[in-house]
């Protein structure tokens, strides 16, 4: 019998305890993996190549204030700007005012919209159809699936901010790399219905010509409007999205404290299990030593056992987290942040192995130090 098979056999000697330990560690690791995935997606991912080229300009005071439409031409004239489209939050209600029926609706310019969002997939004839119908709209294919919308269908969205309702004809379905759950329509529709929106835009999305142009454009846009009645604030698309997240509260501290609690809980569970199994095997340890196994080997045997159990839990937990992430990514929006990368799973495994290792150190060390005679006399 080799040492590895000895460790393996011991790890599953008390099958029920091993399964319970693995399940307990697995659930904790599931949570840890999801938290790490959120952290990675929010704070470490730079976003797609196209997203890194996009900037969002809004009114400096807050998103609630609008900017004049002529800003668009001024922004377009700035060197390094490839395309710029306006955007307007409509904030209407579909069916009823329940959060389950909430999705974003934006007014924009159909002529250039998909030149900014180049990586979004939509057939060309659908773009043309959208451009030709003033009451046309393009919708996220995932959102269309949720409500069973078909091309050509008419949807009615009740206005809350603006005193008008949208009666939109769906002209196209687009697929974004990360589902957006959004509906885009022609901004002119609202401008015609609501006089005070004439010549007003909520924000501008800018596509820079190259990555090197992004910081230059960022500064140039804000400099252009610095001393106007409506000064602007421009930031990268990623920073713009993170701004919404920051509004939820101190998300970083929240994630870190949960990770801390989970890691500590795993340490406790694993140490508990090892303490129980080592206690039961006091006499065996003495026998092993009598047979000539060194303290180091005995220590290694127990630590190895803990690492095996923690790793199995870690792998199980992270795989389930991966599956949850895949499901959530389909839902889109902030749920997409649950998407788990293989690298994150690998970190989770390493974390599990380390926690198994550290949790077993104290009980295993005590066991390895036990005198042979005392051990043999021990009554479990």
């Amino acid at each position: 019998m080799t040492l590895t098979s000895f460790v393996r056999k011991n790890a599953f000697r008390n099958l029920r305890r091993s399964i319970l330990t693995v399940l307990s560690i697995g659930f904790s690791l599931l949570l840890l993996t999801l938290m790490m995935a959120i952290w990675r997606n929010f704070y470490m991912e730079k976003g797609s190549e196209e997203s890194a080229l996009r900037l969002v300009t809004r009114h400096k005071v807050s998103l609630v204030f609008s900017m004049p439409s002529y800003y668009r031409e001024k922004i377009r004239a700035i060197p390094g700007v490839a395309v710029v489209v306006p955007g307007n939050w409509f904030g209407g209600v579909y069916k009823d005012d329940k959060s389950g029926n909430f999705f974003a609706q934006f007014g924009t310019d159909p002529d250039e919209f998909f030149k900014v969002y180049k990586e979004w997939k939509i057939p060309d004839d659908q773009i043309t159809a959208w451009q030709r119908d003033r009451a046309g709209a393009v919708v996220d294919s995932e959102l269309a699936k949720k409500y069973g919308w078909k091309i050509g269908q008419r949807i009615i969205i009740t206005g809350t901010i603006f005193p008008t309702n949208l009666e939109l004809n769906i002209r196209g379905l687009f697929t974004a790399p990360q589902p957006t759950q959004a509906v885009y329509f022609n901004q002119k529709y609202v401008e015609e219905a609501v006089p005070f929106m004439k010549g007003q835009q909520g924000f501008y999305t800018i596509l820079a010509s190259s990555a090197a142009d992004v910081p230059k454009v960022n500064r140039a846009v804000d400099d252009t409007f610095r001393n106007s009645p409506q000064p602007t604030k421009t930031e990268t698309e990623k920073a713009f999205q993170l701004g919404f997240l920051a509004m939820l509260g101190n998300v970083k501290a929240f994630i870190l404290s949960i990770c801390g609690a989970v890691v500590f809980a795993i340490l406790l569970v694993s140490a508990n299990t090892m303490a129980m199994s080592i206690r039961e095997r006091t006499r065996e340890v003495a026998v092993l030593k009598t047979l000539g196994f060194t303290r180091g080997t005995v220590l290694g045997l127990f630590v190895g056992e803990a690492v095996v159990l923690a790793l199995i839990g870690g792998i199980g937990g992270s795989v389930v987290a991966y599956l949850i992430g895949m499901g959530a990514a389909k839902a889109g929006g902030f749920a997409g942040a649950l998407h788990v990368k293989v690298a994150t799973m690998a970190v989770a495994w390493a974390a599990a192995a380390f926690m198994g290792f550290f949790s077993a150190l104290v009980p295993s060390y005590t066991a390895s130090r036990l005198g042979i005679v005392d051990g043999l006399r021990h009554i479990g």
Partner: protein
Amino acid sequence: MAIPISYNIRNLKLRKGLTVMTALGIALTVTTALFIMALLAGLQKAFKTTGNPLNVMVVRKGSTSELTGPFPADNFGTLKTLPGIAKNAAGEPLVSGETVVVIVLPRADGSGEVNVSVRGMMQNGLALRGGVKLAQGRWFTPGQREVVVSESIHKRFSHANVGDTMEFGKGSWQVVGIFDAGGTAYESEVWGDVNQMNSDFDRQGVYSSAYLRATDPVAAAALKNRVGDDQRLKLDGSLETEYYAKQTSSGSVIKFIGLLVAAIMAIGSSFAAMNTMYAAVAYRSREIATLRVIGFSRPSILTSFVFEAVLLSLLGAAVGIVLMLPFNGMTTGTSNQVTFSEVVFSLQVWSPWVIGSAVLFAIVMGLAGGIFPAWHASRREILAALRD
């Protein structure tokens, strides 16, 4: 006959290490759950206690918040003449036309910028909100570029002391006072004169909302309906209390994420508790058999072990509660989904509802972890167990 409780307590004491580690694991889970519940309770308190039941809040028809419902100032003249409105000391109707905008302020600790609600109000606006007390300085003077800020804004943002100037709109504003809104939603606002605000934010001729004080609760209900029914106005009325209570939904994201996290941790802890209890049963195999021989019935052994598991989890709950208590009253903020601005509230750990649910949560974990091992213990054959 029931096995005495002291038997369980003594057993927990006997295996101190095991008990402490399992209880700590449960305590961590309880702490997480407590934190979430304290957040939600604080948020709920902020919204549920805001508003005077006699105040009717008016916005444009179809609008869901003050932020999205500007209406022409002409309508305000009509509103003032509606029946059932209380009079102020000067004998004028107690009404206030207001402007609410969202501005961005830098956090005092430098951790970024936050959206804050700024409310421009008429002089009556202060009388309409009798619960809000001045803590420092004085109220703003109509016609002046002066603002008063809430205590939590004063604490959380830079440039929010009496005598400071704040930069927003078209220039600077003098901070002349700090008010104490008693933990209500107003705790997240900056107040100033409505006309000054309107000219700064290019909102001449419109109000975001209007507040009317009714003479009595019946008049308030009548006034609310009257506003909605008046076809000239195209406005909607709601009781101020109702309007704020609805905003509790701002906590739905925290609630969803928090409950998910707590549930996953609870499942993990239940398995750990089960492990401990199985070990306890295994160690005491002979003891249990002896108890049976003496005459204790299977149900009483089952109850005894379940009780021991619950005791273990209650110990965890106690530790968890003690760990969370220092955070009671800590203020934090989240985004108000109705007004897009930050709402400030304080953690409510020490409330009967929060503590009660934490204890219940721990008991459920103890039951989940204890029932199978206890069942196992009560089912063992006496002879086999005695021979172990």
